[in-house]
């Protein structure tokens, strides 16, 4: 059985994920409203309850890649004085 479920869901704020959710299953958010969710019953219910859309890992990675590329393009367009080590260029993210 796969370790993770991949999906997209919009973070609606308070109550979107609870401390109990965090104890019940792995949950990690990524650009593009992509969420990596522990593959158990409660994780699956969580994505469904949040009106999430399940994705394959490849689909989820493609969404993240597109968002990172978008951010990198925006960073590349910044004036040079803003490209400081405190404002580094967004880096590639590989989903677990």
């Amino acid at each position, binding site marked *: *059985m796969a370790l993770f479920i991949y999906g997209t869901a919009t*973070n*609606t*704020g*308070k*109550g*979107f*994920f*609870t*401390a*109990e*959710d*965090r*104890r019940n299953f792995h*949950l*990690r*958010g*990524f*650009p*593009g409203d992509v969420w990596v969710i522990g593959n158990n*019953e409660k994780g699956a219910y969580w994505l469904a309850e949040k009106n999430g859309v399940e994705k394959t890992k490849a689909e989820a990675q493609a969404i*993240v890649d597109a*968002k*990172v590329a*978008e*951010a990198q393009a*925006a*960073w590349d367009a*910044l*004036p040079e*004085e*803003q490209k400081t*080590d*405190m*404002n*580094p260029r*967004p*880096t590639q*993210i590989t989903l677990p």
Partner: protein
Amino acid sequence: MAGYNELRGLRVKYLSADPANPEDGQVWYNSTTGNLRAQGIGVGAWSSGANMGTARYNMTGTGTQTAALGAGGYLPGLSPFAGAKNTEEYDGSSWTNGGNMNQGKHEAGCFAGSQTSAIIASGYAGTSNLSSSESYNGSSWTNTPSLNVARRATYQGMGSKAAAVCIGGTVSTAVSNVEEWNDSSWTSVTALPAVRRAGGSSGTQTAGIIFGGDIPPKTTTSFEYDGTAWTAGGALPTALSGMQGTNGPQGTQTAAGSFGGSNGTSPVASSFNYNGTSWSVIQSMTEARQVGGGAGSTTAAVVFGGAPGGSPARSNSTEEYNFGTTTYNPATWASGGNLSTARLQLMGFGIQTSSVAAGGNASPPDPNVVNSVEEYNGASWTSGTALPSARQTGNGFGIQTAGALVGAITIATTTEEYDGSTWTAGGTANDNFYKPGATGTQTAGLKFGGATPVTTQTEEYDGSTWTEGGLLNTAREQMGSAGTQTAGLAFGGSPYTGATEEYNGTAWTSSGSLNTSRAGLIGSGLQTAALAAAGGLPGVSSATELYDGTAWSTSTSMATARRLLASGNTSPSDASIVFGGLTTVSSNATEEFTGSSVSNNPASNLTVS
């Protein structure tokens, strides 16, 4: 399995009330509440908070989890790379706009105090470092005397509006300069032992700590301040800068938090707490971020905004961390409302809060088959529409307003559908076997096995027609059933067996067996999370087992042992219901199952005697 006594050399104390001063890791049983309780170690967790009104990074925060203040930062559309003036206030539930600062800024961070009494100094306004300083009274900002050294990228401030410290930062490179605020002016004081910017900070003007940050490179080191001198503190596990922390009145030198930050390559979600000596790993945030705002304490913190590393490059999300006492609530069976008519070999479907009991035998050993139907609302049973004729030993599937019965003795191929008020004839099954397993919905049902003789036959129902499915590996009747038409589960049954099989819509495959072989049991839940309860060994059983998709484990037993009962078999495994059955006589008892859970309560909520 080894018990707590074997593992720890101690017995769990049996107490009538929670102890007054539990130590971290202490475990006890509260006989009054029936809970196994533990004083938390590593039981903190992050949850989502309300989203900020404006996504931003290079911002600063202070205050508490329920009274936080976020200020400034970098917003899109500001030019040239100017910082924001606007502030936002958090009450633990929502963000509202606060007063606008006089000077827009980002990369500030000499930010100290509370939501209603704060001071901010330093920062960057797009063209130059700032020495300006402003104070906040909960509604408006007032200019105050400036720092002696203009700087940016500090993120290192602590104390209160009346007694703050501004530490390090960038002039052209990172600096070690430190200034103290006495509510009227900034004064240069003892410098840091080493330059740094963008670290974390916590505490007061006379008992504070800064940790991590950028020299560059990024560092793990920390320095503690006593109002006069800086001394080395415990090193962070990882070199980081731009962390969110326990800024505000609750963060201290001996209880500081470091949440997220950047490792030099990308933002991270990892988080740590400091106890005055060393840092320990706590649960990671859900989202990696750096240079956002942080506030609160090591037991009740909040992090907001920041740069998550991808697009959008600025975040408006909030996460709250809470640490406290863990309560393990074991699985329980509780009594529900009694059936009006005690009966066995009845049929059931639905869920814990809306189920249906139909037919059955009211007075064994004499046959007294009934056609009465009862509906449950989570508290009590009321009469429903009677069946067209009396029947028993079939099985049900679906929900209270869209259910079905099939497999009753002498009319085993008959299907009857219920919409919550009326019974209508459904499709006729192909196989004439009674006492089958059944699961699924009214329009996607599944029945399998049955008698006589015991069979492996399976049929699938689409709401009108039954078609043959894959054969069970073990012929049986009176089995437990759970799941769906395409992910079904069969377990136990007669001849007495504990065999479990999983159906994938085409074929059955064997899985882990019940620990207690039995027939006349019930089931509910999913193929990956099922409940089995009661049944005959022969005799009657109260045994309960839970299935995780691979194996069965023993759970809390029912109050009343019985067999030939029914269940709301569409219920999830952790919220099931059983009713009726045979003890030594027909039973009218209902029991409701609640699965085990773990709850985390703020330590301050611990009730002591």
